[in-house]
């Protein structure tokens, strides 16, 4: 359904995406995984035909460069954060995008009810919470029941509760023959939604693996997500490495795989080193049943 052939995107002398080849079949669900700057969002923008690139990308057989409109007819897109006219009402936004997709006037109850936004038709977009905006973006993306869904770190701006709700909404969409391509740096999303994980590093596709192989590579059965202030992240990485763990930087902190019996190990190491931890999550294998907590600064 999505064919990415030798795609390279340069910004000046640097390469944000470098010779990436990836096929996403009908009904497949592929997570793009990587640190900030790995090229996930850039690759998604290429697939949407938003930016020029070297190579070739086809969606449903349509080249996104030369037949972009046709290709995007098959795609529902949810961005990291919905940015649209703040003064627009929810109902107006749905009708507007429905028209752009060449559909009739939608039955708002059904469209908004599907994402839990019933009763919010008359609200202006600026009045919606972050989670509600993402639900609206999902409702808009699903207009016309597109066969491809592309998501770009859709839970990055949500709190833990909102994330769980949104991921469970998305989980309801996967497995219905729909093709999904999504960028994420959250283990639980990858585990819940992906059938394959494409790991990007510095713009290159390093490997494509199953979610289980991916979780195993990250650590053992449990992954601890530590939210650490930016200024202390490098020190936290060094302390965790020194303690025999294998940490990975993600958007707002550090991911570290631990044995189920040693979940407190990273906290102990960081507390001894005086590294502050703002928040944490325990991400269990399979992605279901995350535990959340907040620690005082060590």
């Amino acid at each position: 359904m999505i064919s990415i052939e030798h795609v390279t995107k340069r910004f000046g002398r640097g390469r944000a995406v470098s010779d990436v080849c990836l096929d996403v079949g009908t009904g497949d669900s592929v997570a793009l995984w990587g640190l900030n700057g790995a090229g996930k969002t850039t690759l998604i923008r290429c697939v949407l035909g938003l930016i020029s690139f070297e190579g070739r990308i086809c969606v449903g057989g349509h080249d996104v460069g030369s037949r972009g409109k046709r290709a995007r007819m098959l795609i529902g897109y949810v961005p990291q954060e919905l940015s649209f006219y703040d003064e627009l009402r929810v109902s107006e936004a749905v009708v507007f995008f429905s028209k752009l997709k060449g559909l009739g006037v939608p039955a708002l109850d059904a469209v908004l009810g599907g994402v839990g936004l019933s009763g919010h038709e008359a609200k202006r977009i600026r009045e919606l919470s972050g989670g509600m905006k993402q639900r609206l973006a999902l409702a808009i993306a699903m207009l016309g029941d597109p066969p491809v869904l592309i998501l770009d770190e859709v839970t990055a701006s949500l709190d833990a509760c909102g994330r769980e709700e949104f991921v469970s909404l998305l989980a309801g969409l996967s497995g219905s023959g729909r093709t999904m391509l999504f960028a994420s740096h959250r283990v639980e999303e990858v585990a819940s939604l992906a059938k394959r994980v494409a790991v990007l590093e510095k713009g290159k596709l390093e490997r494509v693996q199953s979610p289980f192989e991916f979780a195993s590579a990250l650590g053992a059965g449990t992954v601890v997500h530590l939210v650490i202030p930016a200024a202390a992240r490098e020190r936290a990485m060094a302390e965790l490495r020194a303690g025999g763990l294998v940490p990975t930087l993600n958007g707002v902190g550090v991911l570290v795989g631990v044995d189920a019996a040693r979940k407190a190990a990273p906290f102990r190491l960081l507390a001894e080193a005086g590294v502050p931890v703002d928040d944490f999550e325990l991400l269990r294998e399979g992605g279901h049943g995350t535990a959340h907590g907040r620690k005082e600064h060590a």
Partner: protein
Amino acid sequence: MIAAAIHSGIQVTSGAERVPPGLARNVMTISGRELRDAVRARWFVLYTLAFAGLGLAISLVSATATGGSGLASFGRTTAGMINLVLLVVPLMALTAGAGAIASDRERGMLQYLLAQPVSRLEVLLGKYLGLAGALLSCICLGLGACAGVLAWKGMGTDPAAVLWLAGLSFGLALAMLSCGVLISTLAGRASVAVGTAVFAWLTLVFVSDLGLMAGAMALRMRIEQLFALSVMNPLQVFKMWSLHAADASLDVLGPAGLYATEEYGKWLHALFAGCLLAWIVVPLAAAAVTLSRRSPI
């Protein structure tokens, strides 16, 4: 489950038959959205009030100056109204155009819009026509209110003169809107776009006039050169065309006006129309090319 719920709310065609809407339909959809958004915006209300208020003030002052019973026709206030249009309409159109693409790009709205089955040309034309509609409304409301109050006060108005002025003002607005949209596609940030638009307005309104006078004196330009340089400024084209339409003579402009009348005669309307059309089409085409080549992010 969600898909089924959403799917049931709309009429869709099967996957193999999915055909995106054509250019005209998408342009209509986007322009309708843009027009509704523009007329709700503060800038539209403020510009309309300022335009109507100043127009009314000019008309009433002209009436007083001609002895109270003056203003036998709207034509007597034409000179004042032309100067008002020269000041307000370009500023309004340039700044509205400057915000069209740059602010959407800055807020991520352009990226989201272009992720839908629409082309960049459709987005550009939709935004342009929507803003053009808002500007037309503003001009009609401003001049209409002015003419209406004058008529109500018993100071006769000439409907033809009002229509001519409104039409020419709209032509000028379209030209300036094209320039504003071009600035918007070139600028990286909305603040830079609006700043550049204001600078362009100052240049067109004040600097080019002074520069033309200074150049004519310093370089001892021939009259045809002076006229040629004048028609390169859309504001001068509007001014000359408005005066020409008002009394069929350009004597008031001095030697350049006399030269234009003698040289081009009945072709002056076509010349002015061609110049203004070029100012509408060329910057808009340049904006389309720029938008097609630039990243929307």
